[in-house]
């Protein structure tokens, strides 16, 4: 249905890469599975030969027939076969599981290195599908496909050889039929797979229609559109009906078709072979063997054709996954920095890359930035901030405030100009060093599933319970947490759906504080919280900001007013800067913004009374 955005390039010829990735580390297991598959094929193909011998023995010797020897042989073969089956299922399972494991691990770890421009252009749902379902399909088809092909093809060949040896003329006639069967099976498999894909597509379309229908129920009601809605839905559900029918009927036509082919082979064997039996040129056992083999051949035939069709289908998955792994991160440590990290590690330096640990000053020097080349967001932006100062960024939506902090966090890098930390371009320092000195609170707080405690601890993994409580107290959320059902051990559901936005915001604030960052970034952190939460944040903010360099994007006057430096931005340019009182005295942009906001806040107060 909805084509989710993605810009990951597709990698052609991905199978070769996948083959190398799968086969090389697991050579032994692959070889074992192949040997087991061959043994199984050999035994299964030989069972019919025993039947032949038994029938011949009975016809030839009647009451004196001695079947004990064959019985023992049958049991012995059965034992080996069962051993093979059990072992190859386990080994192929191990192979498929470990392939899935390593493909997923690789792609997940690779994603962790990619930069934000990648995530801007690839929807989360799309990426999740690559890591979970594509990798699973690839692993399955590689492992079980190897088994099926190494079992099926030798078995078909083996049976052909046996038939040919038993009676070359009859053998040739029966064999002549099988290319047709193979062709029919191939065509059917293609059709079935195509129709299954259409069916899945229609099914997700139906889900989307339901989803929209449910979300828009009230709208439909007040516009009295129920009847037309149903009529439109029926068009989709009727399509689903037709496609499901088509899919089911294709599958049900397939097997009778195959059966007719098999019976044709059996019929011809009976006709030609029967005449030879009467003429004494063929034993009855051989005839029985021919008729049985015609049926036995069906299984490997179907299996091989299905595997080949699936293999073809999986190509798209392979190209997507390999394409994903081939994406290079656009922001990463340069080789020089990597060398520094290496040296620092050997030296046991305090900072990750051996440079300063303390951030004494930050400077934006002539910074330009654009997400897309033709749409500049920041131009010639200059700003200098000393350690311990708080900076409020003010300006209309889309003026570039968030971009400034994204650049500071090195989520993106300036397209022109430099960002200097302690006078050094931050591209000469390691990403890890900078980012581990940051604390960020975003407008829409994001919590992970787990407990409240584990979420706060995310900021400092080795924090003790006391540390966690201290951080919570520092941001005035301790008593809120204590009022929750299980206090700090309250489970946060996926997406934090059991907490209010205000609670989530305060917890994410605590998470940033426990991290004890040198730079604190608050990007509209108070925009979507209620007045009570706002008040709680305000009272703690002064204390928490002490000694840290902070960048605050906010609308609320109380937050802005207390900043050491207020920077007014419009269309990516800095137009005013100074303290609250200085800027008010200028009666410029800030004065206007402040006045409008003042009115809005007064109004809010009255309306929310």
């Amino acid at each position, binding site marked *: 249905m909805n084509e989710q955005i993605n810009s990951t390039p597709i990698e052609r010829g991905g199978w070769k890469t996948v083959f190398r990735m799968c086969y090389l580390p697991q050579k032994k297991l692959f070889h074992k599975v192949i040997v087991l598959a061959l043994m199984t094929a050999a035994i299964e193909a030989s069972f019919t030969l025993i039947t032949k011998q038994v029938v011949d023995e*009975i016809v030839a010797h*009647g009451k004196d027939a001695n*079947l004990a020897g*064959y*019985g023992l042989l049958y049991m012995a073969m059965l034992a080996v076969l*069962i051993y093979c*089956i*059990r072992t190859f*299922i386990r080994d192929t*399972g191990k192979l498929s*599981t470990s392939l*899935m494991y390593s493909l997923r691990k690789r792609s*997940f*770890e690779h994603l962790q290195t990619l930069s*934000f421009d990648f995530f801007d252009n690839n929807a989360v749902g799309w*990426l*999740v599908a690559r890591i*979970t379902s594509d990798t699973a399909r690839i692993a399955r088809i590689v492992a079980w496909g190897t088994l099926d092909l190494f079992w099926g093809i030798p078995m078909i060949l083996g049976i052909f050889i046996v038939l040919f040896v038993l009676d070359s003329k009859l053998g040739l006639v029966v064999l002549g039929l099988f290319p047709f069967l193979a062709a029919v099976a191939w065509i059917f498999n293609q059709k079935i797979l195509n129709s299954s894909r259409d069916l899945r597509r229609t*099914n997700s379309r139906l889900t989307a229609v339901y989803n*929209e*229908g449910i979300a*828009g*129920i009230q709208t439909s009601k*007040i*516009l009295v559109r129920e009847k037309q809605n149903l009529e439109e*839905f*029926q068009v989709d*559900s009727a399509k689903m*009906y037709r496609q499901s*029918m088509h899919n*089911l*009927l294709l599958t*049900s*036509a397939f097997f*009778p078709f195959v*059966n007719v082919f098999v*019976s044709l082979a*059996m*019929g*011809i064997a*009976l006709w030609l072979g*029967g*005449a030879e039996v*009467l003429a004494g040129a063929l034993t009855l056992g051989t005839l029985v063997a021919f008729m*049985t083999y015609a049926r036995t051949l069906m299984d490997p035939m179907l299996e091989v054709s299905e595997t080949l069709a699936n293999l073809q289908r999986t190509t798209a998955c392979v190209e997507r996954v390999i394409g994903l792994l081939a994406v290079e991160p656009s922001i990463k440590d340069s080789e020089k920095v990597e060398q520094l990290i290496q040296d620092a590690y050997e030296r046991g330096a305090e900072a990750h890359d051996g440079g300063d640990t303390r951030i004494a000053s930050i400077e934006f020097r002539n910074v330009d930035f654009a997400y897309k080349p033709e749409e500049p967001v920041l131009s010639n932006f200059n700003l200098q901030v000393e350690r311990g100062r708080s900076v409020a960024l003010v300006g209309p939506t889309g003026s570039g405030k968030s971009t400034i902090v994204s650049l500071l966090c090195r*989520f993106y890098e300036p397209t022109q100009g430099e960002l200097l930390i302690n006078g050094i371009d931050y591209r000469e320092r390691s*990403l890890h060093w900078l*980012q*581990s000195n*940051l*604390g960020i609170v975003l407008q829409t707080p*994001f919590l992970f*599933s787990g407990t409240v405690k584990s979420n706060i601890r*995310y900021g400092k*993994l080795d924090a003790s319970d006391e540390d966690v409580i201290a951080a919570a107290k520092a941001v005035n959320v301790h008593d809120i947490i204590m009022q929750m059902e299980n206090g700090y051990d309250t489970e946060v559901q996926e997406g934090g759906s059991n907490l209010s936005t205000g609670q989530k915001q305060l917890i994410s604030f605590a998470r940033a504080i426990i991290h004890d960052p040198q730079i604190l970034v608050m990007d509209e952190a108070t925009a979507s919280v209620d007045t009570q939460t706002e008040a709680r944040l305000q009272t703690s903010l002064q204390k928490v900001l002490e000694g840290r360099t902070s960048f605050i994007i906010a609308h609320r006057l109380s937050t802005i*007013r207390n900043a050491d430096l207020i920077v007014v931005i419009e269309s990516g340019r800095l137009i005013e800067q100074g303290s609250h*009182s200085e800027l*008010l005295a200028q009666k410029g942009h800030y004065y206007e913004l402040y006045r409008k906001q003042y009115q809005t806040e007064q*109004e809010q107060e009255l*309306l929310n009374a």
Partner: protein
Amino acid sequence: MSTKSHSQYQVLIDLIRNKKWYYLGSVISVGIASYFMFLVPTIGKEAIDRVLTEPRVEKEDLVQRMIDWAGGAEMLANQLWLAGGAIVLVTIVSGLFMYLKDYLAASACESTVQRLRDHLYHHLHHLSEKYIGSAESGDILQRCTSDIDTLREFLTMQVMNIGRTLVLMAIVIPLMFMQHAGMTLLSLILVPIVLYYARKFFFQVRDLFQQVDEAEGALTTIVQENLTGIRVVRAFARQDYECEKFEEKNSTYSDLNYRLICMFANFWAFSDLLCLLQSGLVLFGGGWLASQGVITVGTYFAFIGYTSMLIWPIRQLGKELSEAGKATVAITRIQEILDAPEETSSAKAMHLPERFKGTIEFDQVSFGYEPDRQVLNDVSFSIRAGETVAIVGPTGAGKSTLIQLLMRLYDYGKGSIKIDGMELKHIGRKHIRGQIGTLLQEPFLFSRSLRENIKFSHLKASDEAMVLAAKSAAVHHTIESFQKGYETVIGERGVSLSGGQKQRVTLSRTLLKEPPILVLDDTLSAVDAATEQQIIQALHSKKGEQTLLIITHRISVCQKADRVFVMQNGRLVEQGSHRNLLTKHGFYRELWEIQSGQKERFEQDVSSAKQQGDIELGVT
């Protein structure tokens, strides 16, 4: 909805009963198909016994008469293609009946599912507001989609396969007995064990299956959360920690999955052993009987065929039976939705005018969503047709509730509401909703073109009318500025609109309806003041033709209204014209003071900041 009590599987029972002839037809077809399948080894048997081996078996029966008719065994020996042809023919007939059975069963199942889908969709649109308000939409969606899929799978796979295997057994086993009772027993002796073992196994692994599913779900959650919260991850430089978390779930899933596969390895190996032992019993036991002359070689051949025809589907039966268990949960969940109450329809048949005039009268109306919490308290007012009324008040005062009652989304408890002098409860829901144009606070647009969205409630409207509506809502120029104009598709697959644009599109959708009563519930909150003025201006050009209720907090809107209602705590506390209300020192006057800048707190604030700044400067 009727009040009769349902059995748990009522849906299923009703739907299957509707298609009973299809189901019966498919049972008969599969029976015939099974019989012909049975004939394949039987023909081989007769050919071997009566033609190919010496001495030839001769019995006075139907087969012998057929052979005599064809020219006798001697003749047949030269014409063996007849026997071969018979095998092919019988297979074709069996195949045709198998296909007929699939056709009947598939159309019965699929149309059952289709009807259920349509019914659910219809039902959803008639659920009471109360139910929709309290239910989670994700849950409803899941019941309508994945639970229906499970049911479909159950009908088309499990029911069909179980049915086929049972009918096959019912037809073939008696026929085998008719051929040779002893051989039949020998061929089936392990079958009950296979069935029992398969069933037991699949019930046993169900728990593990669920664990694997959950582990996979947990893994997906980790990936999902990591990608959604990627900013948080990067901001704390927690990539390594995230990898560890992923690693843990990844290996948990792998271990569980491998455990499941190992259990399957045991199952397939052991059940293969049982099945092949069964074949071996027939091969050697039957072989011995044949060598002793107890049975003919042909019979021996036939039973080898019968055994393999039966044993593999029976092994599969265990799996199908355990899968069927899953469906019961899905069916119960679907039934729960179907049992949810629909809005009651008013049974009072009275003559209703095609178009109302638009007078509204509230008389001592009280209402609460929950019985113990009143949202509206004894509200009375009357509005003339064509009057414009602005309603102001703080959040939670009950303004929106007024509208919900008027639209009959909820039904009022105490008091009376009259439209054009008729009691609202006696006017059909759809009828009254057709008379009132309103917009929800959260504008909702469907992911289709703008044209379809605006014409959503009035499909037959002309393009001129659509453009006029869009102009009145001050959105025409915006739409024209899009590359595809009114054909622009919006939503997930297309252009995303800003909040204000959405509000204006929904407004034009409502205006196109030209309702006698128009209600705007804080509809223009995301629209800037100038555009709002423009819209209000356009609406006022129709003054007198349309009763207009505007819930707002903008004084500029109230000034243009005939009357202003002020609501607080579920009561109508003030009403009158703008001028009138300004003389009272209430909520309205306070709002006016703030908006018109009458309150000089701001200047005070600024000058105090200045002083403070001066002090600071003085210090430095």
